[in-house]
């Protein structure tokens, strides 16, 4: 897959590196010269210097054959418009934009720029929904609602495997909302029996992560 990443800040740089490690073809575009020079030391020809707001900069990066454009600059207007142009002018099949200021989310929606994200983790998961390398993934903060959503991978030997969901004694302030098993997701009922390898999504009050993690046992990453 050919991916253009706009913005080589902390998010863009790490994202670019991860995508390269996963054998994708990547071009990062960075408009700050000092930042560009720093990133170029490591990523070499995979980073280009320029303002991706300008169409010719996108064309030079080969946007015509890009499968995906990801905008992760610190400027919401840049992120919005580069995605808009990528999608509507260059017919790029998939776009992902970072929202810096949550109040601008409505304008991304207005311009039909979806999906939007706010963290590297989430972008990576959108690209390939693979089993995480770590047992617990922090998926989403819902600060206004004062809730968090996390994902847990049930390891062989987790104390909850083999148990009915209805028999679980989950910590106060947490709730299982879905189970992903062999690539298929479903909402668990009281009779659902948890199995090793299940990916479990839970919604919880902030700060409950550790307690829940302890309850579900050693995480799936310990090898």
């Amino acid at each position, binding site marked *: 897959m050919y991916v253009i990443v706009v913005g080589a800040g902390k998010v863009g740089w790490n994202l670019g590196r991860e995508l390269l490690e996963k054998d994708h073809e990547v071009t990062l575009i960075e408009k700050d010269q000092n930042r560009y020079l720093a990133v170029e030391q490591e990523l070499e020809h995979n980073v280009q210097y320029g303002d991706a707001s300008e169409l010719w900069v996108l064309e030079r990066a080969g946007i015509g054959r890009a499968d995906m454009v990801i905008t992760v600059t610190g400027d919401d*207007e840049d992120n919005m418009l580069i995605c808009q142009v990528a999608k*509507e002018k260059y017919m790029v099949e998939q776009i992902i934009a970072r929202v810096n200021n949550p109040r601008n989310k409505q304008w991304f929606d207005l*311009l039909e720029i979806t999906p939007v994200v706010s963290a590297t983790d989430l972008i990576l998961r959108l690209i390939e929904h693979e089993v995480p390398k770590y047992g617990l993934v922090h998926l989403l903060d819902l600060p206004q609602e004062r809730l968090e959503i996390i994902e847990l991978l049930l390891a062989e030997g987790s104390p909850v495997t083999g148990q009915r969901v209805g028999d679980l004694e989950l910590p106060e302030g947490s709730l299982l909302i879905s189970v992903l098993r062999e690539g298929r997701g479903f909402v668990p009922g009281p009779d659902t029996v948890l199995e090793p390898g299940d990916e479990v999504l839970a919604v919880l009050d902030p700060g409950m992560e550790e307690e829940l993690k302890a309850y579900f046992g050693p995480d799936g990453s310990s090898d």
Partner: protein
Amino acid sequence: MFVLIAGGGRVGSSLARAMLRDGHTVSCLDEDSEAHARLEIGLEQSWEDAGGQFTVGTALEIEALEEAGIEQADAFVAATDGDNTNIVIAQIARQRFNVPTVIARILDPFRAEWYEQQGLRTICPTRVAIEMLETEVKEAASRASGAGG
């Protein structure tokens, strides 16, 4: 007519005064309170006494747009110093607030052309400058070759 101008720089403030002189209702929105002083250049009285309205705020903030009167606006001019801001707020004015006339100033000629094709009314000062310079230089060239030949 009620005109809302986002961006009270040289272009925005001059346009605001001109529209006010022509008897229109004019509201100007700028994130810098200094823009107010620029609106009053050449005026005998304050901008408000002359009938103008001024709001300090960012055009991406819905509260600022509403305070500046976007819901009543017959025309919206995006004339801040940033192309990207202008393109975004022009689309907000058009798609969210259904302002009948929306005009965006876009300095980048390539994007101005593309957004114009998408149905956004754009003014590109760079394109105007290029055309004027081209005309002048070509005239000079033909005079020179005429004199030489």
